[in-house]
């Protein structure tokens, strides 16, 4: 059972309270973008076997979107953080590097 702590209301919620929202920090491309950029934004995903930054919504709680850093093989959670950022905060990166020294930043 996956348990994530909502960074807004501080509740440790199990996955049935949450709605998964897929890969985080995607750069959005609109109507004037090239076909490649638009395809990349809509469909192509990192899908890593390792650290994954992703979006979640506290659906049966405060209802807000937030981000989580999670390992897709061990399901270890490195931390959660609010959604109003374009990249993972330093604190989360440090938490990942403390556990996985080989993890390449941004990988």
């Amino acid at each position: 059972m996956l348990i994530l702590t909502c960074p807004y209301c501080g509740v440790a919620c199990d996955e049935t309270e949450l709605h998964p929202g897929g890969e985080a920090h995607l750069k959005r491309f609109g109507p004037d973008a090239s076909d490649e950029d638009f395809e990349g934004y809509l469909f192509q995903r990192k899908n890593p076997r390792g650290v994954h930054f992703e979006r979640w919504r506290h659906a049966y709680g405060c209802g807000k979107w937030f981000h989580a850093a999670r390992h897709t093989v061990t399901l270890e959670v490195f931390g959660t953080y609010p959604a109003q950022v374009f990249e993972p905060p330093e604190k989360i990166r440090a938490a990942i590097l403390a556990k996985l020294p080989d993890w390449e930043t941004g990988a």
Partner: protein
Amino acid sequence: MSRKLSVVPLVGRSKVRKSTTERQGQASRHEMMWGPMGRYSVFAVAREAFRDHSGWTRAWGNPAPKKRYDAIIIGAGGHGLATAYYLGKNHGLRNVAILEKGWLGGGNTGRNTTIIRSNYLQDPSAAIYEKSRGLYEDLSQELNYNVMFSPRGVMMLAQTEHEIRGYKRTAYANALQGVTTEFISPERVKELCPIMEIRGPRYPVLGALWQPRGGTARHDAVAWGYARKCSEMGMDVIQQCAVTGIRSEGGKVVGVSTSKGDIDCDKLGVVVAGHSGHVADMAGFRLPVESVALQALVSEPIKPCMDVVVMANTVHGYMSQSDKGEMVIGGGADGFNNYTQRGSFHHIEETVRALVETFPMISRLKMLRQWGGIVDMTGDRSPILSKTPVEGVFINCGWGTGGFKAIPGSGWGFAELMVKGASPLTAEFGLERFKEGRFVDESVAAGVAH
């Protein structure tokens, strides 16, 4: 077409089958009486019964990799082995290796719920799945290996008004595609599957899409049968050989690096299901694929009580009874990316809760085993059988939650694609369809349960 014996590692390969002309004059009296040693038959069983079963040989070889192959397939699951088999059988390409990081058929081929059907809505899907279902019909004879194909019939329950409309539409589409299906009444559902409660209360059965020639097969045997035939054709099935890198020169593939050393090849087929993104990353391109765990469970074995496959997409559950008597139950996929091969508890609860309402008799069954497999989901829930940005590298992935049923058809089409550069079966399943917005949209018609 067999290779010289001197280059064949003899470990686990006591006999390389030769063509009929080569064998003439060499066959032992024993072989003349009973046929080639490698062939399974009732006579072989009788013969072995008289000599303490000492004559059975390994079903496939265990060779060390050669320096170079015409084609390498990464992934010795059903799809990879089927691809290799049809490369040899349909296109005469036999200098082929199939590399597997774990053991043969140990991924989703050994983890699915073995359902075979072809009642898809879109024409390209119906074509490849129906080709596949047709090949399953005589696969046991073709492979000389009992894959236990059981065309017991598959029904997809309509439990809402919307599903009735959806399945009637699919039935009409199937009629045009030449796939035999029909929309049946609740009474007929009850007749075909008496243990079902069709009156609800919450999800009454309002009808079903019925495919009488759908069914199940023994999943392991499909992989084993193909592996045996590949080995017999002189191909190398190399297990515990993880690919660690893909080598290319000037945008063209030249080989792979593996845990057993570098191997060169002209063509590379990547057939690794849930790990496609990882392997594509090695080759230097990205895929429109996300990997999630899909799980299944089986009950304790009970007396025969259900001789059809029932799928209930509204409540996310599907069930059939195996030949051993276990009720085989499939459920929902995790909503988040993961490679755990485990699945979540709440999905089991969700699936079983729904099925207990439709099949009240299973409420007192004990569940024996539960497991997960990593499925590769695409945006339109249709597979990718395609060339890639790297010349000579082909990818077969994205079968999502429904790959087992497609094994023979996928191998057939993908082998043709690898040899000729195009195949009518795979034409609509190229990677470029995402950029072009030309989806084969099965996410509504079949995206939930397989």
